[in-house]
């Protein structure tokens, strides 16, 4: 590396260069899209991937000047390039880019498990226990109640009978307590943060994944008879749920042990191994009707806590994720249905505010009850605002299970996730900066 390069001495030169490059790339693609409006899928896909990668990185560099997180840059690049603003990427291509999500979610879950160290869990066990109980029970109840009360302004819920509305409200409540492991990891990776807030946020967000996936499965069982009168909660369904959870834990443990052995005795071509797991293993887990996210979290947890290979695997995920996460978040940005957001914004904003204030209040209450240090009392809520892939993934499952309300329900989820996705990472980074935990990774033992 050349430390004496002129632009390194004067960062504004580098910034101007990046801005010029971004403009150049955008102009070329804009011109091309105008010149050849209908392109082949190969051309569209390659150009879209290229634009999202370049635009995402350059956008994040530019936004970094005003202290915004990289994730926001990726999302903004996706929104701008997407079908609703500059239309550099069309709907079909955005859909095709969704293939990346499978890999990204597997990497996020695996990295999430790897970040869950038993020592950290012990350190924050009391806060975690109280926080999880409060958010799970009171959080679901408050968010569900808000949905129930606001339903007259929600087109698809306005005409539902009370029991059905309660069922949908319950599903909404569960989604409201889901967080974003990817956003949390993305911000921590960028800020290189460490400290009580970092450790608590990691432990809470990653373990809440497991809680949410489990509670969502249970909530769908309860919601079914409310939405479809005449159906009952059957033992078969409970059996299925138990099979899914225990099966995922068992397969995840086996995978974790196999990965630990591979890392110990072979340890090469890790990127290819991760691609294999992301696509092949996920497919296998789906085939067995298990939960991929839970499986990968458990696998990561096993590698981290039952072997000495955790950091090595995390490093490989970081390298693979350098490309995958940019595409994942930029695609999420391109996916944002802006017209829908414009249509549903009063309800979406209200539900987002209820969720945010409930999360803040409950976390402060939890910190007080757990006698947390002041930094957690003040900022412990900051990682709980973001929502992204996990929430959207669960909404897809709900759409599949409840087709009558599914599509409209999912649209509302997308609208609120859009707001949380944009706001959450900014708040979390701000909190880490204010708590003076940014840049402290590796400084403490």
């Amino acid at each position: 590396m050349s430390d004496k390069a002129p632009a390194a001495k004067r960062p504004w030169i580098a910034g101007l260069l990046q801005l010029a490059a971004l403009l150049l790339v955008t102009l070329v693609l804009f011109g091309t899209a105008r010149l050849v409006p209908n392109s082949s899928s190969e051309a569209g896909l390659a150009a879209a991937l290229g634009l999202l990668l370049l635009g995402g990185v350059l956008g994040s560099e530019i936004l970094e000047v005003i202290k915004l997180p990289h994730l926001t840059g990726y999302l903004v690049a996706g929104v701008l390039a997407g079908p609703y603003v500059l239309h550099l990427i069309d709907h079909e291509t955005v859909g095709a880019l969704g293939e990346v999500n499978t890999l990204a979610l597997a990497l996020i879950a695996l990295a999430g498990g790897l970040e869950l160290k038993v020592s950290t869990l012990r350190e924050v066990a009391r806060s975690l226990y109280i926080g999880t109980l409060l958010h799970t029970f009171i959080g679901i109840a408050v968010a569900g109640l808000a949905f129930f009360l606001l339903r007259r302004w929600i087109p698809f819920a306005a005409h539902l009978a009370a029991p059905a509305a309660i069922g949908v409200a319950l599903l909404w409540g569960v989604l409201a307590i889901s967080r974003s492991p990817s956003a949390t990891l993305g911000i921590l990776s960028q800020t290189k943060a460490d400290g009580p807030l970092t450790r608590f946020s990691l432990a809470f967000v990653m373990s809440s994944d497991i809680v949410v996936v489990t509670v969502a499965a249970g909530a769908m069982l309860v919601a079914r008879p409310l939405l479809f009168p005449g159906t009952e909660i059957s033992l078969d369904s409970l059996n299925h749920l138990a099979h899914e959870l225990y099966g995922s834990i068992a397969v995840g443990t086996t995978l974790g042990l196999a990965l630990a052995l591979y890392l110990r005795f072979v340890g090469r071509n890790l990127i290819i191994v991760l691609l294999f797991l992301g696509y092949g293993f996920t497919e296998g887990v789906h085939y067995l009707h298990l939960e991929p996210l839970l499986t990968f979290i458990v696998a990561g947890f096993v590698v981290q806590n039952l072997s000495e290979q955790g950091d090595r695997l995390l490093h490989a995920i970081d390298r693979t994720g350098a490309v995958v996460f940019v595409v994942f978040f930029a695609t999420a940005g391109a996916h944002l249905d802006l017209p829908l957001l414009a249509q549903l914004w009063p309800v979406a904003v209200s539900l987002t505010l209820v969720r945010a204030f409930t999360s803040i209040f409950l976390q402060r209450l939890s910190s007080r009850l757990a006698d947390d240090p002041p930094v957690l009392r003040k900022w412990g809520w900051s990682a709980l605002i973001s929502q992204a892939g996990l929430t959207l993934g669960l909404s897809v499952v709900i759409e599949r299970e409840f087709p009558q309300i599914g599509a409209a329900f999912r649209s509302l989820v997308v609208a609120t996730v859009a707001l949380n996705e944009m706001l959450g990472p900014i708040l979390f980074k701000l909190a880490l900066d204010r708590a003076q935990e940014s840049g402290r990774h590796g400084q403490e033992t």
Partner: protein
Amino acid sequence: MNQVALLLVLLVVAYFGGALRSEQARFGMASGIEYVLLGIVLGPHLLGVLTSNSIQGFEPLLLMAVGWLATALGMGYGLFNGRRVAWSHFAVGSLLSALTCGVIFLTVAHVGQTWGGLSPKSSALVGLASGAVSAGSGHHAVNWAMRSPVEDSPLKRLLSSLGNVDDLPPLLALSGLVVLAPPTTTRDWSGWQLAIAGLSFGTVLGAAVAALLGPRLRRFELWPVLVGAVLLVVGIVLRLGMPMLAPVFLLGIVVTLLSPHRTEIRKLVLATERPLLLPTLLLAGALVEAPHTRGEWLVVLAAVLARIFLQFFSGFVLSLVFRAARGQGTLIGQALLPSSCASLAMGLVVYLARPGEVGRLVLVVSVAATLVGEVLGARALYRLAALEQENTEEPRVLGESV
């Protein structure tokens, strides 16, 4: 085979490709032709394990992979062991490559039109593309065969340098396809304009990437920026119907010329070459279709024979020009027969860009030329390596006896 299963097979192949990169590996062939043959056997025309539908789903990935490989080639262009090759090697290598490309073009175009049953336009296209896929020689083969014990002899330097400078003329010639047959996507632009626009775009974006990575290289940004730039060029040139490989090849050259981190970038990118190449070759093999008529067989035969003749001619010229090659013209001509992965990549791109008889024939020519080169050329390289070893050991033995 469904697409997920095929993806897993490709990942397994890539895994072994990565393993072959290691210094301990002593098996496999330099160009990876064995993976092409495996693809032919598994493909829809023989065993049918890989079906046309499943392969079709991978075409976008294939194009992206080939684009990346061309960038990697561009990053190694004109270099030997990380240093610029000698100007004499550069000039002679480029001239011989351009000559080979031109002569094969004329030969194949003539055979195609006279005996091959091809239309004048198809003959010209097949001729030009055959010239492009046949013009290069393989530096991988030289490094492979002469790896040990002769590490850096003058002859190895010469052959390896030639393999590293002869890719540009055929890639530029390939750009001529759009001049001969402009695409219908952009009616307002002539073939020349498209070709020049594509090359300019690769160059400008290469400069932009170098500028972005220039002042402070942050590793987590290197991959998204580089991969993003390559994919953007691939996407745009495909969208406009421009030739694909030359722009990304130029992007690679410009990045390594302008970036202060060229050594690190090149090292990182070259490490991806083999794992990406082998699955690509497997799929390319599955796309190979035997010539349909006797005339088409003649076209392929003409291209292969012309290449053999021209490589022997090149060996003769090299033996006249360079002292290191003196007296070994025939052997060197034979040693120039193995071709690089660029040949197969070009064949694949033409296949995808020009579906029908042109693409089909050019892919067969590239596979046949690579296969013949591998069979005939590798032995010559091993013999040259043995001769070099004898030459280097002789003075030491004499010294010991004194």
